[in-house]
């Protein structure tokens, strides 16, 4: 992210207050100092960011801790942070957490792979062929209007509440954004690029391989990332509603027994996994893009 202190008064000062009236017009402060001390400023800015990130969550934690230590709130409503940490450790030690996590991850991976592969296929098909687009796009739009959760009761009636339900719902959640972004990405490849390829008399395969797919890659990858986020969302939803194992079930279980420490521990894990999955795709994107840059 570029640094744009838009409404920073210190920055707006020298130029806004008519600098040409001064006897010896000096350049604004920032402009003189920056080049010399870039490295130092960069480091100090990073350090500052790191330092400033901590007080707020620590304050919340401290408040939470004081509230529970002085019994401001009953422990059924809000267990102490130490209790949550203990529960997390217990769940890890007994292997229960790993079991639930493995099941959830397996569901997400299968559903996401299925959904995004189908989405890529349909998106590429609609992006490249007018006939495919005209036949399938309206129906696709129609079905995409209903959010995944809207399909859930219908699917529960049709396929029961077994593994199939989870995989179908998760793949549907991944399918829509992947299809949409793939289609739009391929549609959005600039006509100039395609014209250049025509001038070079690229074959159809070369055109796709060298021009269309590299140019459409960023939006497609965005779609894949959205797809994974949505798949994770759908997984939690379906496990909360109809499951006897997995992270979502762990939450429902904790909620039913009024063991909020279990629920909170599961929330932490869900957040951490969501973060790691997104991180993974970002890393992977860096890989793929680096490869792309090298090949040209």
């Amino acid at each position, binding site marked *: 992210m570029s640094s744009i202190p838009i*409404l920073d008064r210190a920055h707006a000062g020298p*130029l*806004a207050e008519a600098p040409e009236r001064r006897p010896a017009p000096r350049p604004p402060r920032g402009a003189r100092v920056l080049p010399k001390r870039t490295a130092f400023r960069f480091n100090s800015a990073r350090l500052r960011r790191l330092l400033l990130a901590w007080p707020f969550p620590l304050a919340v934690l401290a408040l939470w801790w004081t509230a529970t230590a002085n019994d401001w709130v009953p422990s059924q409503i809000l267990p102490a942070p130490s209790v949550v940490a203990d529960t997390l450790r217990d769940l890890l030690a007994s292997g229960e957490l790993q079991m639930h996590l493995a099941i959830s991850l397996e569901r997400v991976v299968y559903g996401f792979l299925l959904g995004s592969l189908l989405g890529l296929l349909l998106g590429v098909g609609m992006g490249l062929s007018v006939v495919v687009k005209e036949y399938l796009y309206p129906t696709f739009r129609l079905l995409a*209007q*209903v959010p995944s959760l809207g399909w859930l*009761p219908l699917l*529960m009636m049709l396929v029961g509440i077994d593994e199939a339900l989870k995989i179908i719902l998760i793949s549907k959640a991944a399918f829509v954004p992947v299809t949409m972004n793939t289609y739009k990405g391929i549609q959005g490849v600039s006509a100039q690029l395609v014209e250049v390829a025509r001038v070079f008399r690229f074959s159809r395969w070369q055109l796709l391989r060298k021009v269309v797919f590299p140019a459409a890659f960023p939006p497609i990858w965005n779609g894949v990332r959205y797809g994974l986020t949505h798949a994770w*969302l759908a997984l*939690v939803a379906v496990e909360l509603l109809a499951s006897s194992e997995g992270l979502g079930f762990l939450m429902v279980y904790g909620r039913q027994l009024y063991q909020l420490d279990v629920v909170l521990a599961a929330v932490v894990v869900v957040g951490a996994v*969501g973060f790691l999955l997104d991180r993974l795709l970002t890393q992977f994107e860096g890989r793929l893009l680096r490869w792309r840059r090298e090949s040209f």
Partner: protein
Amino acid sequence: MTTSFQDVASGTAAWHRQERRQRRHVQWRQFRRGIALPALVFALWWAAYAFHWTDSRLFVPLGEVWETAVRLLRNGYLQTSLAASLYRMLLGFAIGSVAGLAFGTVLALSRLFDNVVGPTLHAVKQVSLLAWIPLISVWFGLGDPAKIVFLSLAAFFPMFLNTFEGIRSVPREFTEVARVLTFSRWQLWRRVVLPAASPSIFTGIYLALIYSWLATLGAEYLLSAGAGIGNLLTDGREHFWMDQVLLGVVVVGAVGFALNWIAAHLEARLLRWRGKSIARY
């Protein structure tokens, strides 16, 4: 032989006619092809009923869905459910998106605030939305307050992220020009920052609407007190009333479509000054 004015005019008219015919032809083809797949599905559906291919309880004829729609409209169940869902959704959306707008703006304008609160918000964002429901249900119960808290949360994050992104990516040149023109803070905000960030803010509104509709359904499934479209769906599923479930799915889709449509038109109207985009999609 000279070309008269009439010749040219009639030539142009003929050209226009042909153009129009061509366009109508393409539109007709698009319509025909777009309708083909749904028509096929409906035909199979009808055929399955007419020729008794199945006698599953899950299979209901089209007519029955329609009759259920009429029946539920007559006794007001559909309207009350829809009204309750929409009321909740809009209230949650309003609270969440205003909060998101405020937070996004403040964090984008103040680096200090961004550094202090930003990382925490980004960490909280990672928790999958529906994972909050068990906690919220303990803290706020199963009624409307809990749902509205959850819906505000659903609308908050897309709005916050897109507002932040939109304001942060206002080109520096713009603010520099504003400074040269000695704009006041308010002018800078009103004339430069807000217009430049508005497309991104509108993306936020879109996403917040979609997410709060999704979250409305989730909340009504999981915090199952009171009326709502989600309750209508759950009800139908529990009693094996396929007609009611199908009707519910159609209504859910229609509301999603309507929300999108309203947001698109509002955007087109409010961002008219931008002119037509030359992007091809």
